[in-house]
């Protein structure tokens, strides 16, 4: 299959003013996304996941490496984003900040269509289609962002991204500023749109629970590097990288008895990306560390078809806890607990208006 997006050996450095040092935000990142696929990009603050997203949408120019959209370069000297109008869109974390408060909702949704040489009627039609797609009342097109709840604002953000029928959408923490109910609705919406339109998503998030259920594949970033990448279920059930394992064990599922087991408990914090250590970036925090890790960067090992990891001891890490699908166990439990009803059968309930 032909990938929608291919990222090859991407590097991004930021100079530090008044110093010769640089921040190594992204270090040799490679991945691809197929049509209709969601790649979850997870990691803590400072892992470089947002920088990767920004390079893809063209807000940042990579320091080295290449980004291809359907096989054509879109970054660097050889690259051009000219034919890309409307094909790659994005949704940011803070819905309120990404909408112009003085612009009507309709204008905001309509804006990405302006460079597309469509007539006014066509644009109006597409705007209307987009607001219906996100299940908002078309009457809201004449309103302003401040009149909407955070969840509704994020729906507008999604309508604005989807109005051009993009083939790829970069979603940078689209739900982390929202309440649980609004978050769940946004996730439903994104999945429904993907099923209808075969849109590919790069879903950047630190919410592993959501990533587990929305992603087909997942890439785990640490200090600018993808340390493990593979099928979402496989990586979550049997992580091979100690960082992936430790990160998963920090997830608190809303069930008092379900906890993701791990032999790694991460102490301390992500080190500074200014002076990167020589060997494995996790060596200082890793319980599996051996001498080699401190001097040598572990090469990429293939665990399985499409499952890669950078760790000398990945087999030991994977074998240290029995594989288990705690997320699915949680879902089964939720079904058990939440399917009980009172003697009052809601299907026969009388609606009083």
């Amino acid at each position: 299959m032909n990938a929608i997006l291919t990222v090859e050996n991407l590097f991004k450095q930021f100079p530090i003013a008044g110093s010769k040092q640089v921040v190594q935000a992204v270090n040799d990142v490679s991945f691809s996304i197929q049509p209709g696929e969601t790649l979850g990009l997870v990691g803590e603050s400072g892992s470089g996941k947002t920088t990767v997203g920004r390079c893809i949408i063209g807000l940042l120019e990579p320091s080295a490496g290449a980004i291809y959209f359907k096989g054509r370069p879109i970054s660097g000297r050889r690259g051009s984003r000219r034919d890309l109008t409307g094909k790659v869109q994005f949704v940011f974390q803070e819905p309120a900040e990404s909408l112009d408060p003085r612009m009507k909702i309709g204008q905001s949704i309509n804006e990405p269509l302006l460079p597309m040489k469509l007539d006014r009627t066509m644009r109006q039609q597409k705007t209307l289609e987009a607001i219906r797609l996100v299940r908002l009342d078309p009457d809201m097109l004449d309103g302003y962002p401040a009149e909407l709840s955070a969840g509704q604002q994020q729906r507008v953000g999604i309508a604005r991204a989807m109005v051009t029928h993009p083939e790829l959408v970069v979603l940078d923490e689209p739900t982390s500023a929202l309440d649980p109910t609004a978050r769940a609705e946004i996730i439903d919406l994104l999945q429904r749109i993907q099923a209808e339109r075969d849109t590919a998503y790069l879903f950047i998030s630190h919410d592993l629970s959501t990533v587990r259920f929305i992603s087909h594949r997942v890439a785990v970033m640490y200090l600018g590097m993808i340390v493990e990448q593979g099928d979402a279920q496989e990586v979550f059930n049997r992580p091979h990288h100690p960082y992936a394992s430790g990160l998963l064990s920090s997830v608190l599922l809303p069930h008092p008895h379900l906890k993701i087991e791990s032999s790694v408990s991460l102490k301390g914090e992500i080190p500074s990306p200014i002076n990167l250590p020589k060997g494995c970036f996790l060596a200082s925090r890793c319980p599996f560390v051996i001498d080699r890790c401190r001097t040598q960067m572990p090469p990429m090992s293939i665990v399985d078809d499409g499952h890669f990891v950078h760790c000398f001891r990945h087999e030991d890490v994977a074998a240290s806890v029995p594989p288990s699908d705690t997320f699915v166990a949680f879902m089964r439990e939720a079904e058990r607990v939440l399917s009980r009803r009172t003697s009052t059968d809601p299907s026969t309930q009388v609606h009083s208006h």
Partner: protein
Amino acid sequence: MPETSAAPLIAVRDLRVEFPGANASKEVLKRVSLTVQPGEILGLVGESGAGKTTLARSILGVPPTSGRIAAGEVIFEGRNILDLPEPELRKLRGSRLSIVVPNPRAELNPTMTVGKQIAAMARIHLGVDRAQAARMALAMLSDVHIPDPQRRMNAYPHELSGGMAQRVVIAMALICNPAFIISDDATSGLDVTVQAQILSLLGGLAADHGSAMLFITRDIGIAAHFCDRVAVLYSGEIMELAPREELFLKPAHPYTLMLLAAFSHSPKLRDAWRVAETGARQIRDGGCSYANRCPLAQPVCSDGRPPFAEIRPGHFARCHFPVSHE
């Protein structure tokens, strides 16, 4: 779980807080009552706008700007905090009662080293001398697992990461060994691995010092693993209160079930526990405040406020038709 019959450390009774408006004032907390036992961690969950922060601040006698405590009392160590004169109250806050808030950098003084800020709490509240306060601050910094505490004493807030600054704020909150700590979403905005460390730190310190805690959070996952009992706040009212396992395994209030369903990743369960906005009933004064969103609502729900009834020992729900798990 502490015995509920034991004397509570803190008791909030019928607390009402209003925000005055142009025509009518808005009731943000509607007769909220809760108790926390010595050594207990009580979780308080709810969505934005439920009144969580208003409750936290009102318990300390400082409702948010423009808020007004209309009725109720907060009994702590035998005295009603809401009746205390400001100087008395100020003595209590920070020494016997303290609060940890999110966005720690905004709480710290940017022009003062963190060591001095922590020590200042001990000097003001415990009356110890400068050298003793500095020693206590240093010990506290190492208690909150800050690496190289000697050096960090002289650091300014901007030199710290978010997780580190949160630890400093916790150190300030705990240095006087308070009997009661309120954590108001203190771990939101932190990464999960840092959050895990901060939670185990807070839990450990509270246990070591025998402090009780009101742990306010939007993340019900934290409540499921960290709290002894959990209260669910909706629209200024406590809708359900139960021991942790009961609440998560036998939730009774339809709002609690809706919240749990939002985390279930199952669209089917979510649909089962929510009412489409267009089908929402009108909410009437005096009725259940959740009636307009409740899939189990009956005519009676719009007419009468349900009592906060004990449906099983220690498990309370404010609902005419609590969900039964028998």
